[in-house]
């Protein structure tokens, strides 16, 4: 409920802006060019930016879980270890033991699976 003082304060008519302002505003509205609404032009709130970042991270994590990285197969050492004492012959290459066909006294001699050296010696 308005009391007398409030009524007296609100009774007089308000000041009117000048005709120059009306002219300027009319020009302003008539020259306002409608722009097509574009996603990148609209103001984006900070929380929207943060939400987009979090969603990107989540999507990356999900993709990473769904398709695990394929690691290359470990290289097989093409190398033969030859023990040539007469009691035992061992050929290490592909983890297999070979019988008495390999003879020698050298360790870690480069060679092929047949026991022939390949380093030119």
């Amino acid at each position, binding site marked *: 409920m308005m009391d007398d003082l409030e009524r007296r304060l609100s009774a007089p008519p308000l000041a009117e*802006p000048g005709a120059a302002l009306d002219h300027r505003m009319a020009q*302003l509205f008539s020259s306002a060019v409608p*722009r097509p*609404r574009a996603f990148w032009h609209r*103001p984006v709130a900070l929380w929207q930016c943060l939400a987009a970042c979090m969603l990107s991270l989540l999507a990356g994590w999900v993709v990473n879980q769904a398709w695990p990285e394929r690691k290359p197969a470990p290289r097989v050492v093409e190398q033969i270890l030859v023990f040539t004492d007469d009691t035992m012959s061992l050929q290490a290459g592909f983890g297999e033991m070979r019988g008495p066909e390999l003879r020698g006294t050298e360790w870690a001699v480069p060679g092929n699976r047949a026991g022939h050296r390949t380093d030119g010696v």
Partner: protein
Amino acid sequence: MDVNEIEAVRIFYEGNRRELYTYALNITRCGAAAEDALHATFYSLLRRGSLPRDLRPYVYRALRNTAISVLRRNGRALAEDASIYAPATDGDAFDRLARREEAESLLRSLPDDERECIVLKLLNGLTFNEIAALRRVSINTAASWYRRGLARLRAAEKEPE
């Protein structure tokens, strides 16, 4: 902003131009500065990509910021002390003039916050909720500015007697 939004802004301006001008005038106390602030506010609004969610609070807040900027920029150059009320016309000139000057002088005697709150509430028709949001204070603070301002005005009225 598309055509409909520009039209909505224009309709809002047409419907509230006096109130907005009065509010700017209350801050700047200069007619030309108030007009500049009003023009700059709507110029910025039309350059926005989209219409704000609530146009009325947005325009009032933008107008307040712009008017304060204009005031700071021009400072002492704004010597004119324009009235927020319309000048009296020839008809019932004496009565209207007396009431207008009385209201004007009472309002001018108030501190800025209280005067602004009374102008927004009584002359612009904003609610305490809107005033609180505009000034970024609590509703209680806005309401107490208003009540304190009115109490000061009543005291000032009684003083000469």
